[in-house]
Every structure is written in structure tokens, then in C-alpha cells.
């Protein structure tokens, strides 16, 4: 049999021969092309992470929610997660989260002046990696919540430098389901999350998880967060908890396995929310409001420093685009918000771009809510709360 010598040398690593370099290419051009690729990938990663954070719905929850949504056709709900500022009972934003939500220095200062309360006192769990001797520590850095949503910031730390690469964070976001159980039950609605930018070092990173759930009083609630990092690609492919859709959107599974040999087994993190005070203010309205040309009866509105929930008794046209808007306060000042995504449930659930929010919200001062078409800025709804 004959074998090609040059191909047999593919697995050989050469370090003994110095070949003379030739002027066959432009160094600047190579640098330019390389940077273009790096920038494109970085942007892609950022978008994917943002998309995961905003839009990812745990697969098995999706069906449940859709059915529930249809069942609630006469009580469709619109929820707007408002810019997170602070309330007196919330502790200072953890820096990486503050950056993510766009909480500015003014807000941080205001929070300090108003006093803060510790929510989670270093709840953490250590997980032994399967393939290496490295220990991973997962810590709940901060939790905030109101009647309709709970947001958790986890910090992942490894003993091994290089454990959390950008690739790892991107792919782990897609392939590693993380769930939250509250008081022994799954939240009845949806959840999603993703890794935020990496920290200054390369052995720790943050994970932001948000879930929508109806809890009237968080005090002493027990939160259990579970997660899994599969050992190998085949496990990922066979994992029934990962939807086929997610598998299809995950490119180059084999590459992920090669790049990220550090995988965790199942882990869970449990802690109690001892000091989480819900300051949601419910305003009973029960009046007709014109929203995007449709007359609907708004039953009530819940406002908190982290979300705005508008509940009305009829379904809106599903073609309604996400909108921006502003809250008008009793002193005449306004606080603007912008919705950056919308899932397609009959609940009409929206999230906003927190970065446009520049005030510390005192819910008792909100007198009206204005919703605008995001493109034209035309007013599509004006809801007076008084």
C-alpha cells in the first residue's frame, strides 16, 4: 500500500527547522483581516448573549405558557420590565450587573443615600469538575425581585485560569440549562439567562438569570437554582432537557467540546430570601384605555422599581410592535423607558432597554404612563393612574 508522506506528517509538530521567511504577504493586511474576524465574532457573541438573556425561554416552559396564554385570552397581560434603579430595601447593584442594566453613578449614589439591605449573604455551592481536578464555585451574588419577576446574578469561579473563555460563556449559555425553583415549585411562567461579560480575570464570570413568576411576598422564600454542564457533546445531544431548536442553533458542537473540556455535573444552589421586600404598588383602574387603536379595559397596573405590569381584560392585536414610553411623575418629571424585545405570548410580555432609564423610581410618584410607537414615537396609549 502507498501512503502520502506529507499527509502522514500532519500530526507532527515541528520546532527544529527555521525556514527563511519570505516577503509574500502584507503584515498590515493580515492584521486588518484578523481584527475584522475577531470584531465580527465579538459582536456576534455579544448579540447572542444579549439575545439569550432577553429571549431565551426554557423549552418545556414554552408550551405550558402558550397554553396558559390561550386560556387567558380574556385577561391578557402586558408586562413591561422597567429600568432597574433602586429602592430603599435593595442593596447596591453589583458592579457587573449595574453595568449591564445601565445603572449610572447617580442612581448608585441615590441608593447609598437611601440605605441598602443585604439580600443574599454569600450563598454558594462548590462543584467538582468532572474532567479535571479544578473546583468550580457558583455564588449567588445578588438577587432582586418584585411581584412579577425575580432576577439572580450568579458568579462562576474556577481554580483553573482560562476556564471561562468567551467561547465557554457563549456556548454554556446555550447548552447549559439553569432553572430556578421557588418554595419547592417551578415558577409558573418563564425564565432565561445568559453569561455576561467576563471579569477582569479569566477564571470567573457572571451569569444573569431572570424569571417571571407571581409571588406576593418573597420573605423567607427558598430559592433553589439547578444547572448542568454536560460532560461531552453526545450528552448534550442526548439531553432531553435541551430542545431540538436549541441544538440546531448550536453550531459546531464538537468544537465546543474541544475548546471547553471543563464541564460541570449537575449542581444546585439553595438559599433563602430573608430580606427581599416587594415594594410593588398595585393601582386598580378598571377603565377603558385606547391602546394602539383598540379599546381595552385595563384592570390594574403593578409598578415597582423593576417592572411595570399592565393587566387588561382583552387580547391586543399581536402585530403590536414593542414600544417606548415614559412615566410621568407628580413633580412633572418624566422617566423614559424603551422595550427592546417582546415574546409572542398572549401575555404580551416585554422587556426594556434599561440603559435609557436615568432616574430613581419612586413608585408612589407615578401619575401616568405613556406608551409610544418606538419608530414613530407616536403616542399609542396614555394611561392616567389617578
Amino acid at each position, binding site marked *: 500500500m502507498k501512503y502520502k508522506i506529507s499527509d502522514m*506528517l500532519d500530526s507532527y509538530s515541528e520546532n527544529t527547522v527555521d525556514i527563511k521567511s519570505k516577503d509574500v504577504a502584507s503584515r498590515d493586511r493580515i492584521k486588518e483581516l484578523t481584527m475584522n474576524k475577531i470584531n465580527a465574532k465579538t459582536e456576534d457573541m455579544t448579540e447572542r448573549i444579549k439575545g439569550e438573556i432577553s429571549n431565551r425561554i426554557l423549552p418545556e416552559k414554552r408550551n405550558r405558557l402558550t397554553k396558559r396564554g390561550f386560556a387567558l385570552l380574556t385577561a391578557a397581560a402586558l408586562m413591561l420590565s422597567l429600568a432597574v434603579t433602586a429602592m430603599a430595601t435593595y442593596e447596591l447593584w453589583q458592579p457587573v450587573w449595574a453595568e449591564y442594566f445601565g445603572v449610572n453613578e447617580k442612581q448608585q449614589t441615590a441608593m447609598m443615600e437611601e440605605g441598602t439591605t443585604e439580600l443574599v449573604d454569600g450563598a454558594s455551592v462548590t462543584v467538582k469538575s468532572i474532567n479535571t481536578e479544578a473546583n468550580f464555585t457558583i455564588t449567588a451574588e445578588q438577587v432582586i425581585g418584585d411581584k412579577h419577576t425575580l432576577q439572580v446574578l450568579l458568579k462562576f469561579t474556577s481554580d483553573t485560569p482560562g476556564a471561562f473563555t468567551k467561547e465557554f460563556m457563549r456556548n454554556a449559555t446555550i447548552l447549559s440549562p439553569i432553572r430556578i425553583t421557588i418554595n419547592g415549585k417551578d415558577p409558573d411562567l418563564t425564565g432565561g439567562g445568559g453569561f455576561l461579560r467576563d471579569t477582569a480575570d479569566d477564571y470567573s464570570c457572571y451569569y444573569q438569570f431572570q424569571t417571571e413568576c407571581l409571588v406576593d411576598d418573597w420573605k423567607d422564600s427558598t430559592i433553589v437554582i439547578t444547572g448542568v454542564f454536560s460532560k461531552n457533546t453526545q450528552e448534550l445531544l442526548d439531553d432531553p432537557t435541551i430542545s431540538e431548536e436549541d441544538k440546531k442553533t448550536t453550531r459546531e458542537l464538537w468544537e465546543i467540546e474541544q475548546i471547553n473540556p471543563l464541564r460541570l455535573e449537575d449542581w444546585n444552589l439553595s438559599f433563602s430570601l430573608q430580606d427581599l421586600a416587594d415594594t410593588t404598588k398595585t393601582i386598580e383602574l378598571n377603565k377603558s384605555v385606547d391602546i394602539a387603536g383598540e379599546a381595552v379595559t385595563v384592570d390594574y397596573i403593578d409598578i415597582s422599581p423593576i417592572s411595570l405590569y399592565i393587566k387588561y381584560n382583552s387580547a391586543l392585536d399581536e402585530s403590536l410592535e414593542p414600544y417606548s414610553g415614559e412615566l410621568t411623575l407628580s413633580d412633572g418629571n418624566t422617566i423614559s423607558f424603551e422595550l427592546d424585545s417582546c415574546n409572542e405570548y398572549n401575555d404580551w410580555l416585554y422587556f426594556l432597554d434599561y440603559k435609557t432609564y436615568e432616574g430613581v423610581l419612586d413608585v408612589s410618584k407615578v401619575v401616568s404612563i405613556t406608551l409610544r410607537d418606538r419608530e414613530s414615537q407616536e403616542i399609542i396609549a396614555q394611561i392616567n393612574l389617578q
Partner: protein
Amino acid sequence: MDTYSSYVSTVIYNIIGQNMTREDVEETASDVFFTLWNNTEKLIPEKLKPYLGSIARNKAKNKLREIGETVPLEEDYVFVEGQNSYEIIEERERADIIRGTLNELSSTDKEVFIRHYYCYQTISDIEDETGIPASTIKSKLKRGREKLKEIFNERGVFL
């Protein structure tokens, strides 16, 4: 990138230079550095140059395969007797065999063999860089091929 772009470009050029343009070389070189950026966590600093060379070599070969071309090398085949088990040899094992074979060659023979079959240097380039006459280079390459064949046949018995 400043330090190694010439080296990487040369490795690539030796493989695709006869069939492709300068722009293709630059594009492939940028692929190499992009791959490096993607795999920084696997990098061992002391082995950066061979690592880059290996990526450059593989990417250039793949590019050449895409257009159905090959690099014309001096008798780029070794003939092994019988039903050899080469196909079932693991990659790591194959590398060990190759390394063992090369180490049994004299240092000059080994260098010439690597320059031609690994670095894809032409006989003429090797002559220019080492000062060894072309006829001697061919003899050394032949000795390398024979040694490789001999070792493969020996290993074939035991595999």
C-alpha cells in the same frame, strides 16, 4: 502577530503559493491568527511558533484541497508491503512513529526531510537556504523515505 506573520505567511505560501494569490495567503494567515485568538487558553507560550506553523500548514492544505490541487513534492509516497495497519493507527501513535523515524536519521537528513515534506520547501529553496546541492538533497530525501518504509513494515508486523 507582528513577530510571526512573516513566518506564518511563508508556511502558507509554500503550500498554496503556486496556485493562489497573495490575497489568498493573507486571508489564510488571518485565519491562522483568528484560530489562535479562539484557542488562547490551550496555548503553551514556548510552543507558540510550532503551534502557529501547524495551524498554518493545515489551513493551507485544506485550502488547496478545496480547489483540488496538491503540492508537487519529490516522491511524496512511501510504499508499504502487505496489508499494513496504518489506517487503524491512532494519530498520536502515527506521530510517534514519524518522530521515531526522523530521529533515526542524521540531523542533516532529518532537516532536509522536514523542510521538504513538512514545510513544503522546494528542492531549490532548500538548496538556497542550506547550501546543500540539489542532488544530495534528493539522496537524503530518498534515505528518509526508505527509513520510513522500513519502520512501517517493522511496526506492521506487530500491529
